[in-house]
């Protein structure tokens, strides 16, 4: 089936509006994606027809809500090819997923060991590990990046060594779009017996992942970056790894028996799902996954690559335009500076012309420091963006630069 972006846009009514008198051009997709009607309708349908608390009621609505939620768990399992649905945990987001693991490893990681991340992580894949290292006395190490925004893995054997307890890194960088050499890093980490985590915040909507093929211990996804609702994350973990970790939060849903003296915990996935889950979010995410898979992630990725290449071609004629992170292997993110202008100013003037981009440090201060820029402007593309929108973006950018210089 041919990829018809204009039909696809009809699924996203939010795109059809004017901002400051100009048609909205939404290019902040790496921050969050817009939601198709099927997702919005699935959430409405849940509240209109079967809202109830899950897992505890014998009544029909509760059964329906539970079935709805659990069928999404199975859908996620199939999407990333996990062995069993119990290995899929619903969390509040990537940050919550990573904190769950970092907290769980507190009594497993010890002084003399090290935790390895990369210089291009967003803060949620840096700070939880810094906190783990503070608690345990372990050392935090990282892979640096080169001028193209690629990981420097020349010294992989000295960075990941026999004392490496954890290796955690993103599949695709949110600030730069670089696609990282996942297999290489995982293989090395596995050879020293380290726990492994891959952060799929940015890769979720652009790349298919098979967690068994990677043989990774933990993998995380963000619903809202994949056309689903906000407030929901996915944490995949191998059964034996999840079972080895203590729960992160206590409360309802996660217990087996409770007396006033002590409680015993439920098995996975419930052990890590304390409290009433984000039911509407889970239902909505199920609809988003179906939507994405019907279009086909490969088709989406091909469309976005075309947009990225077109945007690079169009913008490179602008004087002083510099791409930050020009790896050949990258996904749908155009992070840039225009010499002689500040990214905030570009962001404001583009917004005045209806174009939504991100400006600043993208929650990745270390990588901005590495590139010696105070921040970048970032246009990121999604399945509904068009070449016409890139033309509008370019024209708006030229106008902004002319005003600022």
């Amino acid at each position: 089936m041919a990829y018809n972006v204009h039909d696809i846009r009809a699924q996203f009514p939010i795109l059809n509006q004017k901002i400051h008198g100009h048609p909205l051009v939404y290019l902040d997709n790496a921050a969050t994606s817009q939601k198709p009607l099927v997702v919005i309708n699935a959430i409405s349908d849940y509240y209109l027809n079967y809202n109830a608390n899950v897992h505890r009621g014998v009544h029909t609505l509760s059964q329906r809500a539970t079935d709805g939620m659990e069928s999404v768990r199975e859908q996620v399992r199939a999407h990333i090819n996990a062995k069993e649905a119990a290995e899929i945990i619903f969390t509040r987001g990537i940050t919550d997923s990573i904190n769950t693991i970092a907290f769980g490893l507190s009594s497993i990681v010890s002084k003399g060991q090290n935790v390895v991340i990369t210089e291009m992580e967003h803060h949620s894949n840096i700070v939880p590990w810094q906190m783990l290292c503070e608690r345990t006395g372990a050392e935090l190490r990282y892979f640096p990046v080169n001028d193209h925004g690629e990981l420097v893995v020349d010294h992989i054997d000295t960075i990941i060594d026999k004392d490496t307890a954890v290796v955690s890194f993103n599949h695709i960088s949110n600030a730069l779009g670089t696609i990282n050499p996942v297999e290489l890093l995982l293989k090395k980490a596995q050879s020293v017996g380290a726990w492994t985590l891959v952060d799929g915040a940015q890769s979720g909507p652009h790349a298919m992942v098979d967690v068994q093929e990677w043989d990774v211990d933990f993998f995380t996804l963000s619903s809202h970056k994949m056309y689903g609702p906000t407030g929901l994350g996915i944490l995949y973990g191998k059964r034996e790894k999840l079972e080895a970790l203590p729960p992160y939060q206590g409360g309802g849903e996660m217990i087996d028996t409770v007396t006033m003296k002590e409680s015993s915990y439920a098995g996975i996935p419930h052990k890590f799902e304390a409290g009433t889950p984000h039911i509407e979010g889970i239902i909505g995410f199920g609809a988003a996954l179906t939507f994405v898979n019907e279009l086909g992630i490969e088709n989406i990725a091909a469309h976005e690559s075309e947009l990225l290449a077109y945007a690079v071609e169009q913008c490179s004629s602008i004087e002083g335009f510099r791409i930050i992170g020009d790896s050949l292997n990258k996904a749908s993110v155009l992070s840039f500076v225009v010499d002689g202008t500040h990214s905030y100013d570009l962001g404001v003037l583009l917004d005045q012309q209806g174009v939504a981009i991100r400006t600043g440090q993208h929650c990745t201060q270390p990588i901005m420091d590495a590139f010696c820029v105070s921040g970048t402007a970032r246009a990121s593309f999604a399945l509904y963006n068009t070449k016409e929108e890139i033309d509008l973006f370019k024209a708006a950018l030229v106008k902004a630069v002319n005003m600022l210089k």
Partner: protein
Amino acid sequence: MSSIQEKQQVLIDDFDFLEEWMDKYSHIIEMGKSMATLSEDEKEEDLLVKGCQSKVWLKAEKNGNRVIFKADADAIIAKGIVAMLIDVFSDQPAKEVAQADLGFLDKMGLKDHLSPTRANGLMSMITQMKYYALVFSG
């Protein structure tokens, strides 16, 4: 020497005259470009206005009963906004700056137009100016 109120009225009129917000931004940018800046040595860490997305340095000096402001910013729109405030409040009696009414920001439509974070930044600049003025008028 125009009073604070007269200066505010000039700004309101200028903004009123420009219909399109892109033109208003052009005006702000031009004010930023023409403002006397701080030297690199003067840009001390403790002069940074907290709560701004971009870096804004604000310096105040006392000259008799008047307060003189100097500023700089790394982003030009922020610089233009602080230049506008300096135009209104610098070289005015400290006491009047401390007590100045801020209704002109609403009349210019600026507060409504800026994003919440930028509006906060603007308010931080003014709070800082008024704070200096209060100290100098004591």
